[in-house]
């Protein structure tokens, strides 16, 4: 897989170099590339600098933003799409299967999943060993094993030391996510929760599903109605809605990188982490060209980093931008900093986990 990706990238790069040699004013007309994107990438594709750079490469992107799993559903019927760009590999595989594509899709950038919260909540979690902060780096971690235990025992905020001083911390302790049936981040959360609840092992059979069923069902039941895609709960968070909100690191990082105030937002990395591989499934040559420039165009890579994304081909780009802007603190390299990486379940098992969470038969 990795090797195949490399070959495609190299070939694409050759093409791109040849293309780049053509003087700008001699270039063929800009072509419109139509597709579906995860809502977390909406701001990136809306950005004038990104649009300008894409136009230089002869592309104008027209994309509807939606939940990654909704996208997979939509992609089945939608004609005239050049590409689909969900937030993770599983819906990408599903779309590929539906489009009967054989080549390996590109992953131009990735982003770890995080939990955003306010300072008061983070401090209470820390006081109760549910979270920790690294004195040196200022990076917060969220203790997944303790959290699973809290879900199993039905812990409430008022059971936690120090919560009484904060009336906004009320009700059961739970992380809010998007709907795993429509959105990749909601599904990734279930995968993460299942991995930890299964004794830090990927759920690979029905016995595993049964082991984690109660915890997943509890997590869903507490939340009630969930939003369609990750943009919505993240935006709502800044209007005061939601206490612990599951989000992409990129959503949180994009704000300070664009000079926006994040108030008292704290970014917590689950100590067992999952990362979303933003995977571009190209159906046409124009779609493939888009994937290629997103991965290889240096200007675009810089812009990706400015939107909090971690370019696959430039691992330090993200860190170089965020390291001097605190708070909030971001992690340099999760694997290198001792975070365990949760293995993602197969597509079939992910569907079973979603059904278990939703209480579907």
């Amino acid at each position, binding site marked *: 897989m990795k090797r195949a990706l490399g070959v495609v990238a190299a070939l694409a790069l050759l093409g791109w170099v040849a293309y780049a040699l053509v003087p700008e004013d001699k270039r063929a007309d800009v072509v419109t590339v139509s597709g579906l994107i995860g809502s977390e990438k909406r701001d990136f594709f809306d950005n004038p600098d990104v649009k300008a750079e894409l136009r230089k490469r002869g592309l104008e992107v027209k994309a509807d933003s939606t939940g990654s799993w909704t996208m997979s559903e939509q992609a089945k019927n939608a004609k005239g799409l050049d590409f689909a760009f969900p937030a993770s590999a599983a819906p990408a595989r599903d779309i590929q299967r539906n489009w009967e594509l054989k080549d390996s899709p590109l992953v131009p950038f990735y982003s770890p999943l995080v939990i955003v919260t306010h300072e008061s909540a983070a401090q209470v979690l820390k006081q109760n060993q549910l979270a920790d902060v690294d004195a040196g780096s200022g990076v917060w971690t969220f203790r997944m094993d303790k959290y699973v235990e809290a879900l199993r025992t039905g812990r409430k905020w008022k059971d936690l030391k120090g919560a009484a001083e904060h009336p906004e911390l009320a009700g059961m302790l739970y992380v809010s996510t998007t709907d795993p049936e429509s959105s990749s981040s909601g599904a990734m959360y279930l995968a993460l929760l299942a991995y930890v609840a299964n004794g830090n092992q990927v759920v690979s059979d029905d016995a595993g599903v049964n082991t984690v069923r109660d915890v997943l069902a509890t997590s869903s039941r507490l939340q009630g109605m969930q939003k369609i895609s990750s943009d919505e709960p993240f935006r709502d968070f800044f209007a005061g809605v939601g206490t612990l909100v599951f989000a992409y690191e990129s959503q949180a990082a994009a704000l300070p990188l664009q000079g*926006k105030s994040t108030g008292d937002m704290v970014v917590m990395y689950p100590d067992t982490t999952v990362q979303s591989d933003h995977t571009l499934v190209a159906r046409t040559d124009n779609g493939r060209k888009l994937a290629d420039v997103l991965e290889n165009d240096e200007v675009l890579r810089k812009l990706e980093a400015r939107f909090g994304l971690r370019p696959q081909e430039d691992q330090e780009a993200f860190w170089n931008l965020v390291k001097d802007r605190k708070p909030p603190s971001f992690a340099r390299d999760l694997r290198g900093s001792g975070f365990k990486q949760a293995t993602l379940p197969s597509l079939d098992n992910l569907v079973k986990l979603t059904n278990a969470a939703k209480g579907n038969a």
Partner: protein
Amino acid sequence: MDFRTKRVVDFRTKRRGGLTAALAAVLVAVTACTSSGGDKPGPGPSDQPAETARPGVLRILAGSELQDLAPVLEEARKATGVTVQFAWTGTLDGADAVSSGRADGKYDAVWFPSNQYLRLDPVGKSKVLSETPVMVSPVAIGVRSSVLGDLGWGDGSKVTWAQVGDAAAAGKLTYGMADPSRSNSGFSTLVAVASAFSKADSALSEADVQKATPQLKQFFTGQKLTSGSSGWLAQAYTRAESGVVGALVNYESVLLSLNKTLPAQQQLTVVRPLDGVVSADYPLSLLSSAAPDQRDAFQRLTSYLRKDEVQKRISEVTLRRPAAAGVAPAAGLPTDRRPELPFPGTRAVADGLLAAYQNDLRRPSRTVYVLDTSGSMEGARISALKTALGRLTGADDTRGVRRFRNREEVTLLSFASSVKWTKTHLVPPTGSQPGPQAELAAINADVQSLSATGGTALYDSLEEAYRVIGRQQAAANDDRFTSIVLMTDGESNSGATDADFKRFHDALPAWQKSIPVFPIRFGEAAVSQLQGVADLSGGKLFDGSGSLDGAFEEIRGYQ
């Protein structure tokens, strides 16, 4: 909708014979496309939605409170070239329109305070492709300043739902609230109080609703006004005598905006209960059925609305909170946080809660229908009336939007040159033997027995309705939402005049004076007479000339 208006004008110039047949045909056509009658377009920032999609135009089915965005959308049109055409409806009716496919091809997007109810339905969920939250407002309680002082609630910043419930139970807090089966603010309030009283601490279950029932009943004894729309609710609050209605439950933004027009003694202090709120985040939502050009227009419009400076402007214009990081809310919006109470995750819980509200929790209603059965009603008109009223006795109504409710007292008064007969039915409470079905069938039997003959003694008959209510109230001495529906297809041509009625009304005791009359215009009804009755009584005029079914159903939100 142009079509509907035009046809009505045509009727007036036609002779009666062809008229009834034409009316019947139009009634069938209109009811086939709008079962609720709620998606009636109103005044908007631009024209009413066209039948077919046009480049650069987004046809949006929306909640009527979005009218306050008009200046922002006008700026958006200049900046993006996208024109918005609105059709208005209630949030839950709108969800029905999307789920049933009635919105497909007719609208490109929907824009309600929340998509929560819509998303409870798997089909509805699949019809929405993309959502962008545009602004946020929590449901709050606007308390009259004098009442706030009497309750000892200080500046209102430290009040809990338990205190609100206790004050209502003790008769110290009376309030108006929109019908939760139609309006998102009413539904959100219901979810919030059920969550708070059951101490669910998470999304509600059916057991939680059961557990909270006694406290919910007490809380709802304080509800003195109900309404199908927030506009009428605000009007009713303004005209209610001081002390009758002490508070309004609505979005924070609606309450703050209302304060701009209220006199000093009616000013509302916005209370967001400490133990939790339910917020609306107004997601502008693209329908999967939208054409590529409309999808493009949607992207352009939402990109514009998400800009920081536009978010700031939206907050200043609407007094809702920005749905964006780093954008400060408009002055006057408090920034201390409240826990967000989750919304039920299943349709069964949501509909169960609504049915419980209508049939068991709220104050029951005393509802009087004053029905014109004069000779001009003969034929298609009387059968349209029988159909419209008969629908209110049907069982197919999961969230309590139409059917006569358990515990409701329903009186039918048939009149022509004089009152022909008056029949009263009391729908039995939940769990009684025999159940409500038998009584609903009896109401329907009376409805089907209506027959058209004679003149139109409108005011005499209306006066009789007040006397009936007076006797009913004296006999039962109970506490009910009381209202009158007046349906006529013509002008009053015998008995008391409008001046007589005015004198009669002026002489009524205060409690009867405050009974709202909801006239329905139909056929050649004299609009000025009906509007006069609505204004005098504090009611509201409904238009039954397009869909009588729709008018009767819409009024259920006010009864």
